[in-house]
């Protein structure tokens, strides 16, 4: 069964450093998302991406964040200068065209720890 793959599963970084979280969505999916979950809090939307551009972003997704689909298979989330409060589990998700808007396929997540 096709799945969304995220790497690395854990990332530890120093405050102020740049991190790139990587995702390989399901191959025929056209909509891509990043969500995050701070420990003990709700899963929250960061950004959606379609047709090589951001279609929607949350207030959390400020200038420190960026997303990219550098080739036909990868989807990345970059945090330019990490802060302590960026520590969270980051989930990538994808969706097929024509499917229900909320029927997403999630990866297993990258646990980001900012020290």
């Amino acid at each position: 069964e096709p799945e969304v793959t995220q790497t690395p599963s854990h990332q530890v970084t120093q405050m102020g450093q740049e991190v790139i979280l990587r995702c390989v969505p399901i191959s025929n999916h056209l909509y891509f998302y990043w969500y995050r979950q701070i420990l003990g809090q709700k899963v929250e939307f960061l950004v959606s991406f379609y047709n090589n551009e951001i279609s929607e972003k949350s207030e959390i997704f400020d200038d420190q964040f960026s997303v990219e689909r550098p080739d036909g298979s990868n989807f990345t989330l970059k945090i330019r200068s990490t802060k302590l409060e960026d520590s969270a589990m980051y989930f990538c998700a994808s969706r097929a065209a024509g499917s229900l808007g909320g029927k997403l396929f999630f990866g297993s997540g990258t646990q980001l720890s900012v020290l």
Partner: protein
Amino acid sequence: SQELEQSPQSLIVQEGKNLTINCTSSKTLYGLYWYKQKYGEGLIFLMMLQKGGEEKSHEKITAKLDEKKQQSSLHITASQPSHAGIYLCGAAQGAQKLVFGQGTRLTINP
């Protein structure tokens, strides 16, 4: 903005027992999604409800959306260890965004 509240926050049941998880929205729901999350894994889509009074079932899990479209319930019949995990309800906000409840942690005791 739309808020989803789930109850209970955690639930421990004996294997074989039935259970219900509730999700209440602060606004009318135009698409209510149920997901399950196992530890160390991502969220897995279970079901989607859209119409008032709608009910869907998959194996031993039944989800309902009330007529007013502000409350949903997830019912598990004859629970099994495989049902253990965190259940989240999510509401569609626009075409591209899901807002989630805080989750209900379900433990099944043998």
